[in-house]
């Protein structure tokens, strides 16, 4: 079956693992014209996410399923399920692999390899302590996800295993199989389980509003964008949080209920009974990773994930072998998808020589032709067998409908089906298509491309939704109504205009920090000319004040070499002390105005990358500004960079965390300050082992493998003291000496410290970017960071096509994540830039200038700020390159000046009539 998709003479990439990371990497590459072999050991694509109920922070699991289907059907992707890489050898540009699958072994060649073998949930079976194997009502989080799934055993309302009753009191135990070194545990934090426990608790409350939910945790690690708010919301929704790590589970006498015993924050012993206990199990690397890594010569980390240099995210030690997602370490979907994009871009950059997707098919002019409708019944094998009985009579009925030229059934058993469809359309000479299926959305892209290949304007297509229909004979009536209406609608369709616009194959990058520079370099490496605009007089951004990545790698060396590369690259034009003051156009065709050296000039470009970065706030607490030895972290670091021995003689150092972050006025976590403090504390202790170093924290968020340095810091004697928002440390100055008083929650008593200096880890706030957001029709979130596309699983895409983000401008993040995003941006941008011509228009709103009363309603309505008043002409204008086709302005315009030809008001009226049985021919 898969053999039908022969690899063409393109760059070939082997992707191992078909979870979200592998799927996204494969699709990104395929969209750029690469050929991908996607190898998955399970019988279906989707990986761990396919087993989850919903996803935090915004659910996107449906999009994951969508991606699996796309991969299976994409002409550039061969998906090998139930398969594995039996052998692999060779080197970059010429890997030879043997894929072992149900049909035997097949040799393939690849220019590059992407490891996306993901994660496995920790199996608590072996872990006696949690009585997982012994008690029925102790389940793992991944099992709960299944119980919560609407397609799961209980239609989404979880029941407890022992008696099938809905649980009333549920406990989540965090860090099971993570953050332990004692027994079959991992020394790292699994990074996702705090958030998913919150998600599961909220979802459980949603399904069972009466249920009590309690999460027992150590540090609530909600460090991602929007996660802290999710945490707060969960508390609002009644999820209870108890800071205590549960030691064991005991069964209550005579029932299947479970008893937990713990000391609460006041030191009182509590015994509580629950009827369901969920183990928030951690993540483990794929069991086969080790073997494959060995075959390839890829080095693994101490934690048995692929070892990656922080400055070269997604690269392994072997040239041409890349890695993304859970194979790199514990990661959530967001980060996995970013890395998938980055790995795809790196593989693409490695495998140069893919020519652009040149020609755009000419569409046949059908305006003079009488409507001739082809009807395709696309049936997936999952329909009930009884439905079969309806098909022949239905087809016979459809044949009798006016305008129908042929009716055909398309069985989607193989991925070549759509190729046959296009031939059939061409042969029959139809000029309209009605396509009926039970997965209409997923097929849309493929149907449209089949039409294009057949020379048909893809807008001449109407679908029939076969989902959620019955299969009894009575259903026939409704089916007839549906098909009659669809054929009627198809006949009314007029071809929509698609303007063919040549793509400007160049990029504008705004912001010359590490993220912006890396994006520019990545694009330039793929032969795209880049203009890099930096507001300040030098490149580098905040990185000038960053000493090291978390493992201690020197950022300054890396920064210097990056600046050199950027300034010397022939494809990159650097404009410092420059600013973008305006822009127009749309994806593939932007014209931006840059003010540089007092002069304005226009730059044409196909895509824009916004990497305007962030900086830390100046606090108004903790005596900041009242003593020279109270630093903001950036200033503290700067001093250390300039003089590595600056603090060597200090006797006592204090780090205060969450300064201005995670507070009501700034309800987000700055993500990297915990790691920073821990890293710096280690560095200070190394500099001077006798120095007393204190970290005053609210939650230690050394997520993922960073947990290792938290341990190292403790080993070195760094003393950690937790405080709450209502009991912040008191900083005072007595006789010129600093004094800090803080209450230790374990001992329940205040301690006084007298540091030589204090570093305040102040909140990271974004650079002012409202004007840029307006120029490029994207938006900022409440906190002022750019908002990524709400179309989920596009973490670096703007909500308007052709606009991308990277680095701190999106949210606080460490260097390695900024760099990964920069690469992901390059990959996403190349999807567009590899096309010579773009089709613009289609399902968009159009203004009739004569009817427009310039009331501005559309301007206010559009969620993407697309309509504007074109002043010389005095009416509203909607750029077809930008409009997303939601149709909102169409319905709002009081003068009915806006039309939507894909689904006009007339169409809707006629469809309603026809669906209700009227004959409206």
């Amino acid at each position, binding site marked *: 079956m898969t053999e039908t998709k022969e690899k063409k003479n393109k760059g070939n990439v082997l992707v191992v693992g078909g979870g979200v990371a592998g799927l996204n990497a494969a699709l990104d590459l395929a969209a750029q014209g690469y050929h991908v072999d996607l190898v998955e050991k399970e019988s279906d694509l989707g990986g761990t996410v396919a087993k989850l109920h919903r996803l935090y922070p915004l659910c996107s699991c449906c999009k994951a399923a969508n991606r699996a289907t796309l991969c299976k059907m994409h002409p550039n992707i061969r998906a090998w399920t139930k398969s594995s890489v039996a052998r692999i050898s060779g080197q970059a540009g010429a890997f030879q692999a043997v894929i072992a699958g149900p049909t035997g072994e097949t040799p393939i060649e690849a220019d590059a390899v992407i490891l996306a073998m993901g994660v496995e949930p920790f199996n608590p079976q072996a872990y*006696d*302590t949690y*009585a997982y194997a*012994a008690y029925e009502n102790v389940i793992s989080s991944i099992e709960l996800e299944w119980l919560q799934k609407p397609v799961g055993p209980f239609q989404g309302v979880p029941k407890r295993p022992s008696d099938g009753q809905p649980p009333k009191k549920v406990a989540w135990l965090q860090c099971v199989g993570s953050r332990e070194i004692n*027994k079959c545990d991992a020394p790292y934090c699994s990074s996702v389980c705090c958030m998913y426990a919150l998600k599961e608790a909220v979802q459980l409350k949603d399904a069972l509003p009466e249920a009590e939910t309690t999460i027992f945790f150590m540090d609530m690690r909600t460090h991602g964008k929007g996660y802290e708010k999710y945490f707060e919301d969960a508390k609002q929704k009644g999820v209870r949080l108890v800071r205590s790590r549960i030691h*064991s589970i*005991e*069964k209550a*006498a*005579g029932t299947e209920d479970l*008893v937990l015993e713990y000391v609460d924050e006041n030191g009182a012993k509590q015994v509580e009974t629950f009827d369901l206990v969920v183990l928030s199990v951690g993540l483990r690397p794929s069991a086969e990773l080790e073997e494959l890594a060995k075959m390839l010569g890829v080095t693994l980390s101490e934690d048995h994930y692929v070892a990656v240099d922080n400055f070269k995210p997604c690269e392994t030690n072997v040239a041409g072998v890349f890695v993304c997602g859970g194979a790199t370490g514990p990661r959530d979907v967001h980060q996995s998808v970013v890395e998938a994009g980055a790995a795809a871009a790196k593989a693409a950059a490695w495998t140069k020589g893919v020519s652009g997707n040149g020609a755009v098919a000419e569409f046949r002019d059908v305006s003079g032709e009488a409507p001739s409708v082809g009807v395709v019944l696309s049936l997936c094998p999952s329909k009930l067998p009884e439905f079969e009985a309806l098909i022949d009579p239905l087809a016979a009925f459809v044949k009798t409908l006016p305008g129908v030229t042929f009716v055909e059934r398309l069985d989607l058993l193989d991925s070549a089906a759509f190729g046959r469809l296009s031939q059939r359309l061409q042969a029959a000479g139809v000029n309209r298509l009605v396509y009926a299926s039970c997965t209409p959305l997923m097929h849309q892209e493929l149907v449209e491309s089949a039409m294009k290949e057949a020379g048909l304007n893809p807008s001449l297509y109407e679908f029939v939704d076969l989902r959620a229909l019955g299969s009894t004979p009575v259903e026939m009536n409704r089916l007839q109504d549906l098909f009659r209406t669809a054929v009627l609608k198809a006949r009314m369709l007029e071809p929509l205009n698609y303007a063919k616009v040549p793509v400007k194959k160049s990029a504008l990058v705004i912001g010359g920090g590490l993220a912006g520079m890396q994006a520019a370099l990545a694009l330039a490496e793929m032969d795209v000319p880049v203009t890099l605009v930096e507001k300040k007089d030098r490149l580098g951004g905040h990185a000038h004040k960053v000493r090291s990545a978390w493992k201690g790698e020197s950022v300054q060396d890396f920064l210097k070499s990056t600046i050199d590369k950027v300034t010397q690259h022939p494809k990159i034009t650097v404009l410092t002390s420059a600013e973008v003051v305006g822009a127009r156009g749309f994806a593939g065709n932007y014209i931006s105005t840059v003010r540089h050296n007092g002069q304005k000039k226009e730059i044409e470009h196909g895509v824009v990358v916004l990497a305007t970065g962030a900086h830390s706030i100046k606090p108004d607490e903790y005596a900041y500004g009242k003593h020279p030895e109270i630093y903001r972290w950036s200033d503290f670091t700067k001093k250390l960079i300039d003089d590595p021995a600056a603090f060597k003689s200090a006797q006592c150092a204090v780090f205060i965390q969450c300064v201005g972050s995670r507070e009501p006025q700034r309800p987000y976590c700055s993500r990297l300050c915990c790691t920073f403090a821990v890293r710096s504390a280690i560095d200070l202790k190394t500099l001077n082992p006798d120095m007393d170093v204190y970290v005053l924290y609210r939650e230690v968020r050394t997520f993922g493998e960073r947990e290792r340095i938290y341990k190292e810091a403790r080993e070195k004697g760094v003393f950690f003291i937790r405080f709450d928002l209502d009991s912040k440390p008191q900083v005072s100055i007595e006789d010129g000496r600093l004094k800090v008083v803080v209450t230790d929650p374990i001992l329940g008593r205040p301690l006084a410290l007298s540091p030589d200096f204090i570093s305040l880890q102040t909140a990271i706030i974004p650079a002012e970017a409202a004007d840029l957001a307006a120029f490029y029709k994207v938006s900022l979130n409440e906190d002022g960071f750019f908002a990524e596309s709400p179309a989920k699983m596009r973490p670096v895409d703007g909500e308007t096509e052709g606009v991308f983000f990277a680095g701190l401008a999106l949210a606080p993040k460490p260097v390695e994540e900024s760099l990964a995003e920069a690469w992901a941006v390059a990959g996403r941008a190349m999807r567009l830039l590899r096309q010579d011509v773009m089709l613009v228009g289609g399902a968009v709103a159009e203004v009739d200038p004569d009817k427009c009363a310039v009331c501005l309603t559309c301007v206010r309505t559009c969620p993407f700020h697309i309509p504007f008043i074109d002043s010389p002409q005095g009416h509203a204008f909607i750029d077809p390159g930008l409009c997303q086709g939601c149709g909102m302005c169409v319905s709002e315009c009081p003068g009915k000046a806006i039309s939507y030809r894909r689904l006009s008001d007339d169409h809707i009226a006629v469809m309603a009539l026809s669906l209700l049985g009227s004959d409206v021919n």
Partner: protein
Amino acid sequence: MPTVGYYPGCSLEGTARDYADSIQGVCRKLGIELVELEDWSCCGATAAHSLDHELAIALPARNLILAQQQGLEDLTAPCALCFNRLKTAEKALKKKASEDPSTTPEGIQVRVWDLVEYFSRPEILDKIERGIVRPLQGLRAVCYYGCMVNRPPKVTDARAWENPTDMDRLVQTLGATVLDWPYKTDCCGASHAVARPDLVTALVGKLFRRALDQGANCMVVSCQMCHANLDLYQKRIAQEHQLPLPVPIFYFTDLIGLALGERSALNWMKRHMVDPEPLLASAGL
């Protein structure tokens, strides 16, 4: 006939003679030859590890070295604390050997067995099963392992340290009804038996309450310290905790003997403080 090294420990020469008899009787019946470690000395117990770190290793280490010298491959220890201390010494000697090979070049090869673990070896279990003449119907038992046999697993090499099942399986094989309960390895306060009986009664009271809640009519142990804590003070505990005691406390070897039809078994049990006779009679045993 299998031969196995035997380290009785001090109590088995004294207050726990009943246990010693029962072990010997059962082994005789099963054809297991116990070879008592010659010139063994005390493991040092809690006293040594509380007061003297070096002695706490040196005392049990002496016994391991003796066993090595006497050519014993396996060494069983009925007392949970002895077992624990021997294992601790074994680990310490291993560590030392790996750090400094000159000291004990060959390391210690002797394998130390907790008695229950030894009796759970498939061939012995099998032998027991085949020899049963009087299945122990009517006994509803909870098995109490105590803390020292399994914890910490890094020392004891226990596979299941929160919910061990070896003794449960053994007693079940004998035909008794074994009840699951969560306190199998909870502490009975053995080290406090003499000096702080107040702590012991608090801990043991909790054990009894749960065992009775679970419906047990007897408890089974494998360690003489556990036995003492459970068996000796039942009157006081019944008063303090308002519990319907007494409840007979058996050594697991008592029950093996009984099931195998060993005539002297009743004599061993007569020496417990709580007389098991009424229970056995009511169960027709």
